[in-house]
Structure formats: structure tokens, C-alpha cells
């Protein structure tokens, strides 16, 4: 347990103090600020127009602004998370510090979990930054908090899946560059796996593929529905990739 937190602490500090993180989070906030404020202003404009006496207008901040914001966060994370996780194991191998990890009294599971937590921690800081937009909107508009929290739970889970993927990609190679590219491809594959869903003549396969659709489960959270099946889905994706990483780390012992 202590080894996990020692490793996670070191890597988290390493990630959060790297110039890379500042560049990434800086650029992300520029993009978010631009489109969030635009969406918010458009929403304000529209609601003023539709705001007739005795009419609700059917406008919903969650659907009009936050949904857009969160899908943008998700889109960015597909690219940004592999860039944050690329160094987790690839750099250790390249700098030969991997030797230190493998000759220390820690298990491959400790290494994989420690690295995963570090990556998730760093991405969560970024998620925290993005959460401030919605939070600050509370100063000018009132909205129910619960759906927003559910949506952000979804963001944390989906970023966890990306971190797992990125970590696994990083464990496969010594090259940081290749690690980013692999992570990116795996992320995109995760999204495209559900493409086969909706195949009419194979309802069984279609159902399975639909269950494996990252987008569908993520959408549940965004819509404010915390479903057990979605929680299980994200936990399994994260578990799978952390497990695969653990196997790769372990394999260096008997290869």
C-alpha cells in the first residue's frame, strides 16, 4: 500500500511540475474559456428571446451549455491524456530507472496502480479546472447541482479509462513518442468499438457492442443517470488496462 502511494506521489509531483502540464492545461483553458463563454452568452441571449410571460421557454443550462462543455472536455482528453501519461513507464525504461523499480521490493501491481493513480490525479487537476467554469456560472444563474455532479463523475471515470489506456500504451514501449500515438489509437478504438451496434440482423452482437460503447455509458452520466451498469463498465475498462499494464511490467521478470 505504501509503495503504491510512494510511487503515485512521486509521479504526480513529477507530472504537475512538468512544463508539459502547464502548456497542456493552459491551452485547454484557453479553448474552454472561449467556447464556454460563447455558449453561455448565446444561452443568455436565447433565453431572453424566448422568455415570454407565462412560458418556461424550455431552456436548460445543463443541456445547452454544460453538455457542450463536457463533450469538449472529453474530446480534448482523447488527445491530451495520452500526452500526460506517455512518460509514466516509457520514460522509466528510457532513463533506466525502471531497473530501480524492478529491483525494489514492490510488486508489479503496486507499480501499475501507483502509476495509474498518478495519471488520474494529474488529469483530475485538469478536470477540476474545467469544473470551475460551471461552478462560477452559479454566481449568475441558478441550476440544480446533482446532474452536473453526475456528469462530472462521468468525466472522472472516462478520464480514468483514458489514463488506463495511456498507461498501458506507455508500458509497451521505450519511446515516448510511440507511447502517445499508441494511446491515441487505443482511445479512438475505444470510441469506435460501438460502431457495429445497431446491426439489424445480429441483435445479440448489437446488444453486446452497445454495452461496450464508451459513448453510451458516458452519455448516461451526462444526462444525470448514474447507472450501475455504466459504473461497472468504466470500472472494468480501467481494471482491464491496469491489469494489462501489470502483466507487461511483470513480464519483464520472465521474458
Amino acid at each position, binding site marked *: 500500500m*505504501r*509503495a503504491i502511494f*510512494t*510511487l503515485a506521489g*512521486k509521479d504526480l509531483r*513529477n507530472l504537475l511540475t*512538468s512544463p508539459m502540464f502547464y502548456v497542456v492545461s493552459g491551452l485547454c483553458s484557453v479553448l474552454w474559456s472561449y467556447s464556454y463563454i460563447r455558449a453561455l452568452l448565446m444561452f443568455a441571449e436565447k433565453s431572453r428571446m424566448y422568455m415570454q410571460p407565462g412560458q418556461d421557454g424550455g431552456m436548460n443550462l445543463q443541456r445547452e451549455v454544460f453538455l457542450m462543455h463536457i463533450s469538449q472536455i472529453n474530446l480534448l482528453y482523447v488527445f491530451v491524456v495520452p500526452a500526460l501519461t506517455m512518460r509514466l513507464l516509457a520514460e522509466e525504461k528510457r*532513463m*533506466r*530507472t*525502471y*531497473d*530501480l*523499480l*524492478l*529491483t*525494489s*521490493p*514492490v*510488486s508489479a501491481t503496486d507499480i501499475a496502480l501507483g502509476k495509474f493513480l498518478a495519471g488520474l490525479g494529474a488529469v483530475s487537476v485538469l478536470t477540476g479546472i474545467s469544473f470551475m467554469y460551471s461552478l462560477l456560472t452559479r454566481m449568475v444563474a441558478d441550476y440544480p447541482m446533482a446532474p452536473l455532479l453526475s456528469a462530472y463523475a462521468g468525466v472522472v471515470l472516462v478520464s480514468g479509462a483514458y489514463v488506463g489506456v495511456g498507461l498501458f500504451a506507455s508500458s509497451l514501449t521505450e519511446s515516448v513518442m510511440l507511447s502517445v500515438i499508441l494511446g491515441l489509437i487505443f482511445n479512438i478504438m475505444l470510441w469506435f468499438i460501438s460502431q457495429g451496434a445497431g446491426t439489424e440482423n445480429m441483435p445479440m452482437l448489437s446488444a453486446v457492442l452497445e454495452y461496450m460503447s464508451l459513448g453510451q455509458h458516458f452519455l448516461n452520466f451526462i444526462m444525470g443517470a448514474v447507472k450501475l451498469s455504466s459504473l461497472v463498465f468504466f470500472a472494468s475498462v480501467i481494471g482491464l488496462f491496469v491489469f494489462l499494464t501489470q502483466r507487461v511490467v511483470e513480464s*519483464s*521478470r*520472465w*521474458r
Partner: protein
Amino acid sequence: MIEVKDLSKTYGDRPAIRGLNFTVQKGEVVGFLGPNGAGKSTTMKIITGYMAPSSGEVKVAGFDVFEDPIEVKRRIGYLPETPPVYTDMYVKDFLRFVANLKGVPRDKVTAMVNASLEKTGLGDVQGRLIGNLSKGFRQRVGLAQALVSDPEILILDEPTVGLDPKQVSEMRSLIKSLKGQHTIILSTHILPEVQANCEKVIIINGGRIVAEDSLSGLSKRMSGGGHSVTVKVRRNQDAVAKTLAAVAGVLRVKNSGNFIEVECDGSEDSVEKVAAHVVASGAGLVELQVQALALEDIFIKLTSKELTH
């Protein structure tokens, strides 16, 4: 402390080590010697639990390396060929990290880190980034990292490679100062290193052990107990060389250019007689050097013999 039995490792179909057997007792300093590519690093890596052998077994302090890797790793401090240091960490932070990673009890971490900083003489640079340190200092950080958990066994893989002569001698005296506190395996292809520090030598070549003995035992065995004396005189070199052959105990005299090589039996008496004879001849003795068959010669003999087989 360390028992190695029938240890073999193949990379693909290329055997790296073949049937190694040796034991290391507690407190011993063992030199692990061999040319590049002999299988030294592979053996070290297997002992540290970094990789598994293809066959055979290694026991460290009674624990099997493959069955109980965590217990084994707890007892070993390992300095690989390239010191495993994070260039973007400060020396002290790095050592704290390693101490925590190696499971040093929480309340002892600070004391252990300070102790290893002191042992390796890193006190002055503890607040600097490792990436900004010279190669010699990085190597010391690597050693400090191996020492920080105060392990029973230290495994040092070519600790002086790439250092300048001053750093090499500092590193050597550092290793010397660790004698007696730890069981040490020192792998190297640099012979003076072994001569300076080790009591026991294991010479490995082509993945096999070709000699395992104490340093003095080894040189005695290989030379048949003889001495070679080099004599340098200012005048009359040829005349001195001729008369030297008649001195009791001298087996052979070779007059080669700048000096005379005298091979005599192993006793100090004969060396004394040779010296007395040269001085008495009035040829102006400038240099006289007794060379027990040097480790270098043994090494070359053993490793080239193996290759011609």
C-alpha cells in the same frame, strides 16, 4: 548468504550464462570478473530478481529469488551499470523516495537518508537537481540509492565505468569503506578494482566460471608460485643480464630492451640475491620491481584459454 545453483539463462537461442555455481558468504567482498559480454550483468540481474533464470536457482539469505522476489529485493541494494536516477529530482528528495519505496520504516527514513548522504559524501549537493550533477556524482547518487535501505547485500555492476581517474579512485575508496558492513558483489572488467577491494574472485567467461579463488590463491596457482623481477640499470645491461643467470634461484633471464626480466622461484631469498647481485655489479640500479603474476595476466590466460577451446 547467496547461493547460485546451476544457473543458466538464454536470450533466444543464445546462451548468456551456462550452469553457474557459486556461493558467497556473509560479509565477503567478491569480485565478479569477466570480459564484456561474459554474462556478468545477466548474473547480477538474476540475483537481484530483475529477471528470471532459464533454469537453475538462486537463494539469497535463504529465500528463493523467483518464489520470494519481494523478500530478496528487501535485502539487496543494487547499482546497475547506468545509475537509476531521476534527472529531474533533487538528490535528497530522490533518496527519500527510494527509502520509502524500499520500505524503510517511516520514522527512520530521514536518518537513513542522511546516513547514506554522509557515507557517499553527497552532503554538499543534496539540494541540487540530479540532472545537473557530473557523472561521478550521479554514480555516487546511484550508490547512495543502493545504500539507503542499509541492505545486507550490495550488488555493484561496474561502478566505475565512465568516470575520470580521480572519480574512480574516490569511488574505490568509497567501496572500500563499505567493506565489513555489507556483503558485496562487485562486477567489473577492470582488474585493479578487484585487486583493491576484493578477497575472493570469480572469473567468468563465455557464460561459465573459469576460476573461483582468493586473490593470492589465484595468482599462486596460475604462476606455479614463481616471481618475475624486472630490473633496470644505467650501464652494462648486457653484462649484468649474463651474470644474473648464475645467481641461485634464478630460472630464466630475458634481456629485453630497456630492462632485464628475471624469472625466479617464489622465495623472497632469491629476490634478495638478485638485488644484491645487481648492486654489487655496480651497473647503477635504477629500478627493481617484483611482480607476482598479476591478475591481469591470470585474467588474460584464463579468458583466452576458454575461447580457444
